[in-house]
């Protein structure tokens, strides 16, 4: 039972009779009258439990795009339902106006639309739907909060997709479709075609030309159907905040751009997210199904406050891959974490695979390095310089063990990783 402002006003109106007849009995009588009126009002209100509530939410939405959640309320009682409805969502679902006045005659239905602009990646689960049903006097109301299930999956923003056209153009340049012919290691024979002026004379196939009247050149294209395994580290180092978002989000952006690029280049892309166990997995998706599967798998990832199980991760990689592949580790270059975690096992990966370690570093470190305003800041700068040196040393060691290292600012990580992929592909090192 709920009382409204009218009840408070009616009680305050009782001051008039109390001033006319100033005895405690007047107060008691007026209070009893108000209570009785509220009781009658509640008794005459439609039951909020006699409302069929149905929810429709889109399965998923990309971060920062808007969507709607719909509630359909049907009055199945015999009384007219006058009330207030609240469609509750967590704050990060971005539901701004979610309260609705309704007036439903018996048997009728209404549709309430809540606009959602999610502000965080992940699964947003709808909270309760609260129905408050007023009596005819609107003095008091009955109220119930119902669990009406609904889940909105907020997909990663994929802001790095703006880098995709330029990288696809470079991919085409490597391909036989463009005029520029690239021949070298890692390319495979594509087809024969007639010589046109400007072609490299070294690519003339003399044997084929001898059989025909025209000069014939060979064309080449990059290798296809290579395997790319993206491994996202979701352990404690992925929770560190770089700028305004956790490191994990930068890793996800990079993984999405690489997957889009590699998928278009004809490679088979797989993904696992790992800390001490597999948190997400995408395998066997290709063509148009690849990117939705990736986004869906990456959307609910959250960092766990655990240390990465690197031997287990290597085991999981070997389990997925039977032949040589490109293994992209999206983790950290934090010297302590790498020395105790990745370094002992990276050899097992580089033996049989091409390994790329991609990590976003903190943009604040650059500010710390340059600060010279006071002795305090110089100490910080010295600490930052020391950290940078250690990271450089770790990078050197990793390169010596045969791994490629991509160390970039969070917003640069995705394009830099894509460039590294293209470079490896051009060099035929996949």
């Amino acid at each position, binding site marked *: 039972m709920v009382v409204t402002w009218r009840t408070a006003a009616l009680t305050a109106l009782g001051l008039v009779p109390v001033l006319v007849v100033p005895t405690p009995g007047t107060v008691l009588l007026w209070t009893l009258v108000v209570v009785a009126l509220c009781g009658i009002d509640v008794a005459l209100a439609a039951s909020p439990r006699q409302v069929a509530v149905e929810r429709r939410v889109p399965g998923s939405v990309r971060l920062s795009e808007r969507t709607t959640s719909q509630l359909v309320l049907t009055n199945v009682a015999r009384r007219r339902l006058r009330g207030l409805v609240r469609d509750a969502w967590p704050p990060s679902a971005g539901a701004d106006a979610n309260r609705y006045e309704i007036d439903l005659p018996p048997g009728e239905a209404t549709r309430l639309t809540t606009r959602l602009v999610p502000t965080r990646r992940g699964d947003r689960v709808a909270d309760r739907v609260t129905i408050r049903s007023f009596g005819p006097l609107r003095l008091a109301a009955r109220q119930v*909060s119902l669990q009406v299930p609904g889940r909105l999956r907020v997909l990663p923003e994929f802001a790095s997709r703006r880098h995709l056209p330029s990288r696809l153009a470079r991919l085409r340049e490597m391909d036989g479709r463009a005029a520029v012919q690239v021949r070298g290691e890692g390319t495979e024979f594509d087809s024969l075609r007639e010589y046109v002026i400007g072609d490299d004379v070294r690519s003339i196939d003399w044997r084929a030309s001898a059989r025909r009247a025209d000069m014939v050149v060979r064309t080449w294209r990059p290798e296809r159907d290579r395997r790319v395994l993206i491994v996202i580290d979701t352990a404690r180092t992925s929770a560190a905040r770089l700028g305004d978002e956790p490191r994990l989000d930068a890793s996800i952006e990079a993984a999405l751009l690489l997957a889009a690029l590699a998928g278009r280049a004809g490679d088979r892309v797989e993904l696992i997210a790992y800390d001490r166990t597999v948190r997400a997995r995408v395998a066997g998706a290709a063509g148009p199904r690849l990117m939705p599967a990736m986004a869906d798998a990456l959307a609910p990832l959250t960092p766990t406050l655990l240390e990465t199980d690197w031997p287990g991760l290597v085991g999981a990689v070997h389990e997925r891959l039977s032949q040589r592949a490109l293994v992209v580790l999206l983790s950290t270059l934090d010297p302590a974490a790498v020395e105790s975690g990745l370094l002992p096992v990276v050899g097992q990966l580089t033996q049989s695979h091409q390994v790329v370690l991609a990590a976003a570093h903190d943009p604040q470190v650059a500010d710390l390095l340059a600060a010279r305003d006071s002795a305090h800041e110089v100490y910080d700068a010295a600490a930052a310089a020391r950290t940078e040196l250690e990271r450089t040393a770790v990078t050197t060691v990793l390169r010596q063990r045969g791994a490629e290292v991509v160390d970039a600012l969070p917003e640069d990580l995705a394009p830099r990783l894509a460039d590294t992929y293209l470079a490896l592909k051009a060099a035929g090192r996949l």
Partner: protein
Amino acid sequence: MSVPAPPTAPSAGTALGSGLGPGAGGRVVSTVHEPVTGDGTTFASRSRSRWRSARWPLVVLLSIVVVAVLAALSRPPVSSIPLAPDNPSPQGAQALARVLEDQGVRVDHVQRVSAAVSKAGPGTTLLVTSDVELLPEQVDVLVATGADLVLVAPDQYTLDSATGGAADVAYSWGGGDAVRPAGCTDVDAVAAEGIRSSGSGFVADSPDAMVCFPHPDEPGSGAYLVVQDGDRRVVALDDSRTLANQTIGQDGHAALALRALGHHEDLVWLVPDYRDFSTGADGVGTGIAALLPPWVGVVGLQLLVVTIAVALWRGRRLGPLVTEDLPVVVRASETTRGRGRLYRRARSRGHAAAGLRAACADRVAGRLGIPRSAAAPALVDAVVRATGRPADQVAHLLYGPPPADDAALLELARHLDQMESEVYHP
């Protein structure tokens, strides 16, 4: 109404091929659930669950109330005011009141002057246990009742008002512990034979007044004053121990007190209270309530009810709060800052300078194309060639001794920056 929307197949990849869900690929998937009606509870089940959740707090509350009521009822009302008839402590006078009641005297214990005035009159005895708390008007009102007065240690004003100036306070203390004989012809005093007193004593100014139990050193003053004014009799005692529980059993105290208070069947026992300003018999016009209009209390009550109504109105939410499962986010640069603070606290300028120098040397070597593993002289030579600085200055900057204080460290950092900026940046 509840027809589930068929999930449409995802469209083929668009030009950019990002195909990330509805925004990119135009995919629309709705998750539709069955309609929910009610929360599965009935009036009976809700009542049961409310009772279950509320019964233990109710039991605890109820038992506290019961215990409090029992404790209040089981203990007789006991006062701690000196000479109150319901005070059993040594300073009280419960013994005297009980004995008087047993002898058939109706003892009427009052604490307000207005109540005393309404009950006392000719043919009754009015005992005033103290006059320190009384206003002069109240004393006058009490005297005007016409009742026989028994005053305990009265001051001069009260004595004048009660006796019409027939007696004065003697201010002769130091009567000591000696038992004083009656020394007068008053029947009560003679019956009591002897009492002890350390009060200030009285002296008689008129033939109507009689002073008994004279002071051993000053025969004119006595501990007991009787003024007979027609039918009215005014008695004053200069010491409260004649009536108090602790001392009433000594000497002739009990006899004197019982006889002085037992002249009439009705005894009004006034224990004055400093919060009482009443003078009349109507009982109205006391305290702060006398200054306010009569309806204030009732309006306050109604306002209390309004406050409760407003609290009920504002207190109920439209559904519970929704919590956000916040991400665990630690600032990545915190470890670096922590390291800087450690350097600072330990005043480890050597480490800090070494870090700055090593980082500078690393960057400069990278620009000049010198391998990282190159020896110090090779790097110094290269920097000298690139910047034109003297060799010993460059060597001092890059490989010199640690700075002596924070200012020197700051200076070193700035010099290193400057030297680095002079090296050609490709």
